[in-house]
C-alpha cells in the first residue's frame, strides 16, 4: 500500500539561522497511526506544521518533498496548497483551552470550515456536527452546539476538537500532543476515542507526543526525532522490545514505569547525548559539503 503522506528529505532552517529539520523522511499509510516522538525542540510539532502548511514565517523549507495523496505540496502555489490541505487534512491541537474561540458558540466553530471552505449547506453541516458530537460521546450534543467553550470541561472541549477534526472526513489527521493538557483518566478516554474514530474512518494519523507510554498504546509505527533528525523509524512492537538507536533506548529508560520504581526515570546519560550530537554534527558537515 502506498503511503497517503510521504515526507522525503525535508530540511528546514530558521531564516538566517540554525537547521530545524534535517532531511526528515517518513511515511503514513491510510489507516496507519504513526507516533512522532522527541523532546522539546526536537522538531516534532514543526513536521506537523509543515504538513498542514502552517509553518511560522521565520521558518524556511530548504529542500525536500511532502507528498499528500500523490501530490507534492511544496510544488503547489500557496492558494492551491491551502485548498488541497484543507480538503484532505485536519489538526487535533494540543490545548483545548486556547484552540476554541471563547466568544463563539461550539456549533459554528465546527461547521464554519464545512460551510465556508468546503461549500456545504448550513443544514447539512449542522447535521454532520451533531452526528460527530454523538460519535465522540458528548451527552446532549444539541445543547453543546449552542454552548460556549467555557461551559465545557477540558475533556469535553478536547472531544469537540476531535469531532471538529473528523467532520470533513479528512484522510490525514495531525494530532499535536492532544492529551498533554489532560488528566490521566481523561487522557485514557480521549486516546480511546481517537483510536475508535481513526479506525472507523480509516484515517492516516500522525500523532505528535513526547510520551512513549502513549505511543505504545495508540501507534503502529513511530519516528524518534533528535535535533530535527529522525534517529529511528520502527514498528512499535520492535521498538518497545528493543530500541535500535542508543538515544531512543535512553529516552525509553527515562520514561517512568509505576510497575517497577527502580526502572524508568533514568536521566539520559551525557555519553548518549554526546554521541548523538556528534552524529548530528557529522550529518551537518556532509550536508554543507554535499
Amino acid at each position, binding site marked *: 500500500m502506498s503511503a497517503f503522506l510521504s515526507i522525503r528529505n525535508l530540511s528546514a532552517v530558521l531564516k538566517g539561522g540554525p537547521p530545524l529539520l534535517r532531511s526528515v523522511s517518513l511515511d503514513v499509510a491510510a489507516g496507519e497511526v504513526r507516533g512522532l516522538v522527541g523532546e522539546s525542540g526536537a522538531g516534532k510539532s514543526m513536521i506537523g506544521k509543515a504538513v498542514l502548511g502552517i509553518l511560522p514565517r521565520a521558518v524556511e523549507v530548504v529542500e525536500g518533498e511532502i507528498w499528500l495523496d500523490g501530490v507534492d505540496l511544496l510544488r503547489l502555489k500557496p492558494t492551491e496548497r491551502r485548498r488541497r490541505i484543507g480538503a484532505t487534512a485536519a489538526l487535533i491541537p494540543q490545548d483545548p483551552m486556547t484552540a476554541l474561540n471563547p466568544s463563539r458558540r461550539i456549533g459554528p466553530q465546527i461547521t464554519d470550515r464545512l460551510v465556508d471552505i468546503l461549500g456545504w449547506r448550513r443544514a447539512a453541516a449542522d447535521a454532520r456536527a451533531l452526528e460527530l458530537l454523538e460519535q465522540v460521546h458528548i451527552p446532549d450534543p444539541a445543547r453543546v452546539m449552542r454552548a460556549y467553550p467555557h461551559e465545557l470541561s477540558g475533556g469535553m472541549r478536547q472531544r469537540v476538537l476531535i469531532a471538529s477534526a473528523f467532520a470533513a472526513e479528512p484522510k490525514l489527521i495531525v494530532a499535536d500532543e492532544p492529551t498533554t493538557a489532560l488528566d490521566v483518566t481523561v487522557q485514557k478516554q480521549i486516546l480511546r476515542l481517537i483510536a475508535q474514530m481513526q479506525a472507523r474512518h480509516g484515517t492516516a494519523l500522525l500523532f505528535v507526543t513526547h510520551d512513549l507510554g502513549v505511543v505504545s*498504546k495508540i501507534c503502529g509505527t513511530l519516528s524518534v526525532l533528535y535535533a530535527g533528525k529522525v534517529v529511528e523509524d520502527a514498528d512499535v512492537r520492535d521498538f518497545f522490545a528493543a530500541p535500535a538507536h542508543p538515544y531512543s533506548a535512553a529516552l525509553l529508560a527515562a520514561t517512568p514505569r509505576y510497575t517497577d520504581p527502580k526502572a524508568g*526515570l533514568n536521566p539520559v546519560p551525557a555519553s548518549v547525548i554526546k554521541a548523538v550530537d556528534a552524529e548530528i554534527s557529522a550529518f551537518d558537515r556532509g550536508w554543507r559539503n554535499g
Partner: protein
Amino acid sequence: MVEAVKPPPLYQVSDLRLSFPDMARKSLFGAAPGIEVLHGLSFDIARGEVLGIVGGSGSGKTTLGRVLVRLLQPTGGQLKFDGQEIGALDEAALRPLRRRFQMIFQDPMSSLNPRRRVGSIIAAPLKLHGFDAVSRRVDEALDHVGLPRAFRHRYPHELSGGQRQRVGIARAIAMQPEFILADEIVSGLDVSSQATVLALLEDLVRDLGLTLAFISHDLSVIRRLCSHIMVLESGRIVEHRPTDALFDSPQSDYTRTLIDAIPLPDVDADWINRD
C-alpha cells in the same frame, strides 16, 4: 505501637475544611453561601516523609497544598505545624514561620520574574527574611541544584525548562526550610529533564533532611519518589498509605482507576479498551 517511638509529626492535620464563597449563588446584598472544597481531612506528615498527593483535576490537591503552606486560610479544623496551630494565624504572625515552609511552583516560566537575573531571584526571599551572607547562600543553593554559579547572571529565558525548574528549587532550599511543597513541578518537563529533577529532589531530601509534599497527577513519578501516597477525590481522602502497599493492593476503585489509566511504555493492544 510503632507510632509511639517516632518524633512528633511535622504536620498534624485534623478535620481540615475549606470553603470558598459561591459567587454564583450570592444574593444581591447578602453574603455568598460557602461551597466546601476540602471536606474534613485528617492526616499527619512525619519529619523526613515524602508524601505524594494525587488526584484528578478538581480533587482539591492544589488547594490542600496551598493550605499547608498557608497561602489559603482553612475555614475549619486544626492545622498544626511543628506543634503550633497555624490555621488561624494572620499574615504578621505567619511571617516568621514562612521561611520554614517553602513552595516550588508548576510553571517556572510564570513563577520566575522574567526581568530579574537568577541570582536576584534566589536572593529576594533571603533578603526579605533578613539572612546574612546572601551572596554566599545563593552560590550554595546553585551548587545544591547542580547549576554553575555563573548562572546567577542569567535571565530565566536563557535557561532550559529543566534548568528553570532547578532555579525554583534553589530559591526554595536557600531558605533552609523544613518543609517543601512541590506542585506538579515536573509535569511540564521532557522525560529526561523530569528524571534529572526527580533525582535531584531525592538527593536533596536525603542530604538536607527535608520533608516534602509532592503534588502530581502522575502516579509513576510519585511511586519513584514518595514514601507515602494520599489519594484525593472531590476534596476527600480516598486512601493514604505507604507507597508500596498502595500499589500492591489499592483499596478503592478510584485508586485502581488512576493506576490503570497510566500508559506504561509497553505494547498492550487491549489496554485502550479496558475499563
